[in-house]
Each structure stands twice: as C-alpha cells, then as structure tokens.
C-alpha cells in the first residue's frame, strides 16, 4: 500500500477498535446494572455512567496538564539552553535539529513546536501536548548522536505527525475507556464477593429465562477478563496510531526510507530509555520499556505491545517507497 492508503487503513482500523471498545464497555455496564440493581421498566445504567465518569477524570487531568508533566518527568531541557553550553560539533547537531523541526513544521502547515533535549544515551524521541499549537517535541542525546540529518528528519516527521493526528486526544479517550472498564470490573468483583446482586429478585423472574442466564454467564467471564481485554484493545489502538504516524511522517518528508533507516539504527541500540515512564510510552517513536515485548513477534507480543514490531514498521515503510521484498 502506498502512504495515502496506509494512512486511510490505519484511521479506519482505529475506528473499528474504538467501536469494539465502546461495545465492550456497554456490555459490561448493562450487565453490571442489571445484575446489581435489577432490570426495571425505566432502565438507566447508572453504574456504567458513574464508572465511565470516574475513569475519565484521571485521563482528562493528564490531558489538560498537557506536555509540562511529561517533559518535567524526563528531565528534558529546552534546545536553546542546551545549545548555549555546547561544543562546536554538538552546536552543529543542535542547529540541524532546530532546522529539521522548522522544515517539518513548514511541510505540515503547523506552528513550530518548542524543542527539548533529554539527557539519555538511548536513542528515542517523543511528542507531548494537546494538539497543534500546544505541543512539544523532545529527542534524547542518544538520538542526536546516532542519526544523520535525513534519518533525524524522518523521526521528527513521525513525531510531528502524532501531533497533527491528535494522537494525544485519541489515547486520552482510550485511557478513559480503560479506566471505566477497570472500575466496572473491580466493583462487580467486590459486589459479588459481598453477596451478589438482586439476581434472585424481580429481574430474573421477569427476564428472558435461558437467554438471561446465558447473558449473565458471558458477562461474568467478561468481568473476569475485563482488565486484560481493555489493555489489549488500548494497545491495539496505540499500534495503529504508530503505523499512521509512520505513514503521515513519510507524507511530510516524501522520503520513507529515511525513517526506515532511522528505525533500523534505533533498533540496533538495545538499552531501554529510562527517562520515560510507562504512561508516556505511546508517545515515543520506539518503546522505551526495554523492548522485551516488542522484540518477540509471537501472539502475546502482538496483543500487548504499545508499538508494532520494528521489522513490520520498516517493511511498511519500504512498501511506501515501492521497495517490496528487499532487506
């Protein structure tokens, strides 16, 4: 698929997973309210709304606080500060970084985001913030050392694409849904522990007999697996957005092979990016958590990794450059 087709495919897949997410939440929520509060004529799934509301709070707080928290946690320093105390070689690299960010902002038609440098020897980069005009880009010192100008341009294009595709908003919605599902599952388990709901009451006598029982069996299994399923769905969205950012970045540079080479270089460096916490992993170009999950390509890796396997990303980029089957 060329880069336009890949973008369209990944946007579509995001929608599909989001719908699955909402359906799953509704399944849990309706079952929860039916189980614990009975099915009356005027059935309002109060429990579901409360769970979703509470689950959204921490997600929204993180979203609104924007990039400050993430940047502070990684020890990122503004580019101007780093350049002030830099040697000649470093000054050239930093100037190249500044120019590359400018170039990509022009290509994307976005205002220029502030640039930060993270003092970590592992090559990585991330974008943080609410959206265009309120975002920042950060790269590690290891990234500046490892990549040439063309590869750096590919990485910055990828990060800027996260900004222009509003990926922070997408992942905030996902976090709210995960929060709601986990809460529902938690309350349901506590509720059952403390003696179950009014299943024996009006609900089951008025309910559909065998169909009602079947629903509850399915629901109980769903409750047990809910946190796992929620995490799987969330990571699925994260991976689709990574593919989308690769394709959008290739559209900016019109040079997919630059980013492909950058990913190969980043993959070659084995160490985890210790500066970046788990919560911010989805914003990075490569998984900062040591890549144990992303190196394997088996079923478990496919389901729970925040980033797609590097080999698959590189293959997709080569396809965009019409280089099928090589390397």
């Amino acid at each position: 698929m060329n880069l336009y087709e890949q973008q369209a495919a990944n946007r579509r897949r995001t929608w599909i997973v989001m719908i699955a997410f909402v359906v799953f939440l509704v399944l849990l929520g309706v079952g929860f309210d039916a189980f614990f509060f009975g099915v009356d004529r005027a059935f309002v799934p109060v429990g579901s709304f409360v769970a979703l509301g509470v689950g959204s709070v921490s997600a929204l707080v993180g979203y609104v606080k924007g990039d400050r928290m993430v940047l502070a946690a990684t020890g990122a320093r503004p580019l101007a500060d780093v350049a002030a105390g830099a040697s000649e070689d470093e000054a050239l690299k930093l100037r190249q970084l500044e120019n590359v960010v400018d170039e990509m902002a022009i290509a994307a038609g976005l205002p220029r985001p502030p640039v930060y440098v993270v003092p970590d020897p592992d090559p990585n980069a991330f974008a943080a913030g609410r959206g265009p005009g309120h975002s920042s880009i950060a790269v590690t010192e290891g990234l500046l050392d490892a990549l040439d100008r063309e590869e750096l341009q590919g990485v910055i294009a990828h990060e800027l694409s996260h900004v222009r595709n509003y990926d922070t908003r997408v992942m905030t919605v996902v976090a709210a849904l995960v929060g709601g599902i986990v809460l529902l599952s938690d309350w349901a388990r506590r509720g059952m522990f403390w003696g179950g709901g009014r299943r024996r009451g009006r609900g089951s006598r008025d309910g559909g007999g065998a169909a009602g029982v079947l629903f509850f069996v399915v629901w109980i299994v769903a409750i047990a697996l809910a946190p796992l399923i929620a995490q799987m769905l969330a990571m699925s969205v994260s991976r689709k957005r990574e593919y989308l950012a690769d394709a959008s970045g290739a559209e900016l540079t019109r040079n997919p092979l630059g980013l492909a080479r950058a990913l190969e270089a980043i993959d070659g460096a084995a160490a985890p990016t210790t500066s970046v916490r788990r919560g911010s992993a989805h914003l990075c170009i490569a998984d900062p958590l040591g890549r144990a999950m992303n190196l394997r390509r088996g079923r478990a890796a496919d389901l729970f990794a925040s980033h797609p396997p590097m080999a698959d990303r590189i293959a997709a980029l080569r396809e965009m450059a019409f280089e099928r089957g090589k390397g």
Partner: protein
Amino acid sequence: MGSGIILLVVVAVVALWAIATYNRLVALRNQVLNGWRQIDVQLKRRHDLIPNLVNAVRGAMDFERDTLTAVMEARAKALTATGPADAAQKEGQLSVALGRLLAVAENYPTLKANDNVKMLQEELSATENKVGFARQFYNDIATKFNTAQQVFPANAVAGMLGFQAAELFEITDAAERQVPTVDLSRK
C-alpha cells in the same frame, strides 16, 4: 402532520450539511492562501540570508570568485522580479547558483573541516529545504481544497458558494527540470 415534520427534518439536515461544507471549504481556502504566502516568506528569508553567507566564505574561497559573484547577481535579479512567473524563473536560477556554491565548497578539504563552514553549509541546505517544503505544503493543501470541492455532494454547491479550484505550484521554465550540471574544476 407526520409528513410535515419529516420534511422539516430533511430540510434541517440539508441546511446543516450545507453550512458545514461551506465552513470547511472556507477554512481550506484560507489555508491555501496562507500556504502560498508562506513560500514568499521563505524566499524572502533566503534573500536576506545570502549576503551574510557569501561574505563569510569569501575570504576562504577566494579562488571561487566567479561562483560567489554568480550567487550575488542571481539574488539581485530575483529581487527585481516582476510577477509570479518571472519570480519563479529567477528564484530557480538563484537556487542553481546556490547549488553550485554548495558543491564547490565540497572541493576544499580544509574548508570542509572548518566548523564555521559546516554551519554555513547547513544554513544553505536548510534554506533551500524550507523553500521546497513550503512549496510542497502549498501543493498538498491546494490538492485537499480542490478535492473537497470536487467530491459529491459538495461539488453540487461549491460553485454556487463562490469557490474556485486552486492552481498548483509548477515549474514554468522547462530548463529547471533538467538535472543541474556541476563543474568542480578550478577556474
């Protein structure tokens, strides 16, 4: 009574769609205008930057007086361009002259090792890149605008609402499509 309400709903939906379409086209048209002006911003930046760059290397690259003069002359011509077609041609010639300066600088090993020169080469490349990306963005956003006007059902109302297709940036001088020749021999 029932059919009256249905008619009302249909009219309301169509009206809302028309408003949304109009607003979207207006937003795109403004982005297209902005994109066009952005190219000028980058070209002006290049004009302002060139004298400083040329002066900085003039001492070290004394043998390349021809190349340096060519750059300054091309810049002067570009500043006096009349109209977009003329400007496009003269800016193209300036790009060619700058390209030669970059290539010739490669010929001086001691110059290449000099950090100041590396920084200047970076600035030259970055300036050319920015002009290129500004043109790329203009074409991208103009294409989006044209597509938004031409898809069904928007194409039914776009003309009525006063929208026209945007022109894409293109090379008018066929000579610019030729691969530039670089002469690295010492003059």
